[in-house]
């Protein structure tokens, strides 16, 4: 099975464009809304979709994603439903690379091996697990490698240089640069050392480096994309989504234009 993430990255690089990644919480406000949003995101030129699986204790997330997770969990969203949705999208011809974002425990409860197998065969390209450093669950990580399910590594502003080199080396697909010290959530301004940090990471690797956490306006997205290889936007999308799917779609469109015009 082709890994759309690899294909997409090659494509965008050739065109010397930036990558725009959107985060959505699976099942918020409903599975049907998530489906509609993924399809419209692809149409508005979103390059990568980060599909967040809700967890009862999302400790890397701020109030916005906590809220969307709680709402989705009230409807008892399951990992299986996530897989079914991706399968359905792929059957419809949707080719946007989908990266699963989730905390480790639901994956562990599903069965790590089974998860790697089913995620890939449903049509997911990668994984972002904020509470799984490379040092833990090495058997699971091996299984993902075998299945060609890319594990995207996060690098934080606090990460020491030597460790950052190890992380970007291990990261598959792209590198996720956590732009700030803190949890996810829209911020008015981003830290001053972000650009320096991005440049440092870019010197360490030829893989695309995307910045995420706190990015909430087209201006910020455009600004940061000049240094990074793209941005990841989550909470700001979910904030719009609270007002309805069309508001979120308009916002995604505006952000996409900002990143791609950069």
């Amino acid at each position, binding site marked *: 099975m082709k890994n759309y993430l690899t294909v997409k990255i090659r494509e965008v690089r050739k065109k010397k464009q930036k990558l725009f990644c959107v985060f959505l919480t699976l099942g918020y406000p409903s599975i049907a809304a998530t489906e509609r949003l993924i399809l419209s995101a692809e149409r508005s030129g979103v390059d990568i979709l980060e599909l967040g699986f809700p967890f009862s204790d999302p400790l890397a997330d701020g109030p916005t994603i906590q809220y969307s997770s709680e709402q989705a*969990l009230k409807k008892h969203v399951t*990992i299986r439903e996530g897989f079914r949705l991706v399968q359905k999208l792929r059957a419809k011809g949707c080719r946007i690379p989908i990266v699963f974002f989730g905390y480790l425990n639901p994956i*562990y409860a599903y069965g790590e091996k089974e998860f790697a197998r089913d995620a890939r065969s449903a049509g997911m390209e990668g994984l972002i697990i904020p509470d799984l450093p490379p040092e833990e669950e090495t058997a699971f990580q091996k299984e993902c490698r075998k299945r060609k399910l890319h594990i995207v*590594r996060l*690098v*934080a502003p606090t990460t020491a240089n030597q460790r950052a080199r190890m992380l970007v080396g291990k990261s598959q697909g792209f590198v996720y640069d956590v732009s700030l010290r*803190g949890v996810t959530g829209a911020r008015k301004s981003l830290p001053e050392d972000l650009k320096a940090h991005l440049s440092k990471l870019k010197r360490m690797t030829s893989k695309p480096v995307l910045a995420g956490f706190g990015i909430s306006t087209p201006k910020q997205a455009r600004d940061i994309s000049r240094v990074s290889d793209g941005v990841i936007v989550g909470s700001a999308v979910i904030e719009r989504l609270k007002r309805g799917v069309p508001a979120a779609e308009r916002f995604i469109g505006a952000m996409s234009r900002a990143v791609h015009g950069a």
Partner: protein
Amino acid sequence: MKKLPDARGHFGPYGGRYVPETLVKACEELTAAYRVIQNDKKFREELRYYLETYAGRPTPLYEAKNLSGHLGRGRIFLKREDLLHTGAHKINNTLAQGLLARRLGKTRIVAETGAGQHGVASATAACVFGLQCVVYMGTVDMKRQALNVYKMKLLGAEVRPVHSGSRTLKDATNEAIRDWVTNVEDTHYLLGSVVGPHPYPSMVRDFQSVIGKEARAQILKIAKKLPEYLIACVGGGSNAMGLFYNFLKDRQVRMFGIEAAGEGVNTARHAATLMKGSPGILHGMKSYLLQDKEGQVRLAHSISAGLDYPSVGPEHSYLKDSGRVSYHAVTDSDALKGFEMLTQLEGIMPALESAHAVGYLPKLMPKTRKSDIVILCLSGRGDKDMNTVQRHL
């Protein structure tokens, strides 16, 4: 026996360090600093000074003759952690971590609290060591432990209410970790139990192991032999690890960890993680966890806020699997009976957490012989629980 944990903080399959990347550096720094102070005479002297002159160590080992007479068979001794400054064993750990935070150059500490005992002990350590202190507490717990909220504020700490999830200890811990991620450069996370990412489970255990070290010396002096039984309540499990640790190699010493059965382990409302949970990952560690089949964390319930936690220290998970410690659970109502019994027979009002261990004695004592010695860790005093007790008795 192997020395646990391994270099990465694993107790067999449990423990480890499942944290967001932002916290890896802080955990590594803490591990390194902890390794240094373990062999640092000056640090140990300083800690001993505060434990003895400020907290009130050593705590007495009291033979509860009335209680033993009432229940029959062996002799019951109480390790009186309830007599410590601030009313519980929590101060052993907060003074140590307070000193450590100061050494790390941190100016601010954050802590989570359930019963408020760790919050008060953290606020106290912050006060004496000149650190800024923020305590996260679930709004359910703020209500049932209102007195401790007031104490923390008097001590100069800021108590931040947590409205998310079950609004108890689990969610307070989430918020404390989020604060730590945000302010990691100047903030030390003063975790209150043997839980969380490496090095916390082993570090807090070591700081609490003074309980068992003293108890061991005391009982050898009084009875010229080791105890046959140790018993302690288990929420996160810090007082239990503190008591058990120095006896783990003594195979003849049998150990009982008592969890909170809430309204019963076969109802949906309990906090008996080791008895009814399954391995999972929460708060930076792998350990037994109360969870549904989708891996979502279930809400715990206990009358005692300090035991109201859906996971448990990873070393307890290891000790359960290895069979070294046997874990049981006591219901809310049996804990209240334990509270009443100790109050009426010995004039000692235990914290509702410790009352769970007391509440197990009517089951344990008939199995003992007359010459047997039972040491119970009376981890805290009951002042904070007067409102709850008044409502129920």
